């Protein structure tokens, strides 16, 4: 079936380095993707989104890249900080706009 998945379950980076979290999706008709951050014991928190008519979108210290040719999504975090330690999920919105499909998550650990 259609799925959204992640390549790496755990990513460990040094404080101040850049982080890249990857995600693959299988539904070529998907046109909206969201990255969520989930800290321990909390609900997911919206980070950034991107529509299929874009290749790149930037926020504060975060950038999402979308490669529709290979159905790949990535989240880049610049100058990673200890507060960035969390699990990151990519999610795909269906065309009806009423159902999010989440990937399995990547745990980002920031070493001081």
């Amino acid at each position, binding site marked *: 079936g259609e799925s959204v998945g992640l390549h790496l379950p755990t990513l460990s980076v040094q404080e101040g380095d850049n982080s890249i979290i990857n995600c693959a999706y299988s539904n070529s008709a998907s046109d*909206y993707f969201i990255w969520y951050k989930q800290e321990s*014991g*909390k609900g*997911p928190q919206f980070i950034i989104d991107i529509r299929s008519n874009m290749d790149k979108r930037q926020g504060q210290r975060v950038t999402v890249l979308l490669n529709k040719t290979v159905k790949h999504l990535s989240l880049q975090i610049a100058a990673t900080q200890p507060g960035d330690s969390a699990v990151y*999920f990519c999610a795909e919105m269906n*065309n009806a706009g*009423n*159902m999010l499909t989440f990937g399995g*998550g990547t745990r980002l650990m920031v070493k001081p």
Partner: protein
Amino acid sequence: NAGVTQTPKFRILKIGQSMTLQCTQDMNHNYMYWYRQDPGMGLKLIYYSVGAGITDKGEVPNGYNVSRSTTEDFPLRLELAAPSQTSVYFCASSRYQSSYNEQFFGPGTRLTVL
């Protein structure tokens, strides 16, 4: 605004017991959702509602029921708890139904069924 609130935060049930997980939002959002998150996994949609009086099944609805009598509240009911329902449950809400539609999540309810 408090956003999305959920009660209780934690609950332990015995097999066969029933309970209701409460969810309330004060953002006047039309759309509300219930997800479950198993350890190390992403969230899966149980049920959603597009407005008061209207609910629909998500990906994993079996064993659950919902109701939406008001815009603010969207309770999730477990009638006969089973160990497979041990999970963390998240409620979410959003304003519009569209492809570009941020969902706001509550803090979650951790449920253990023994």
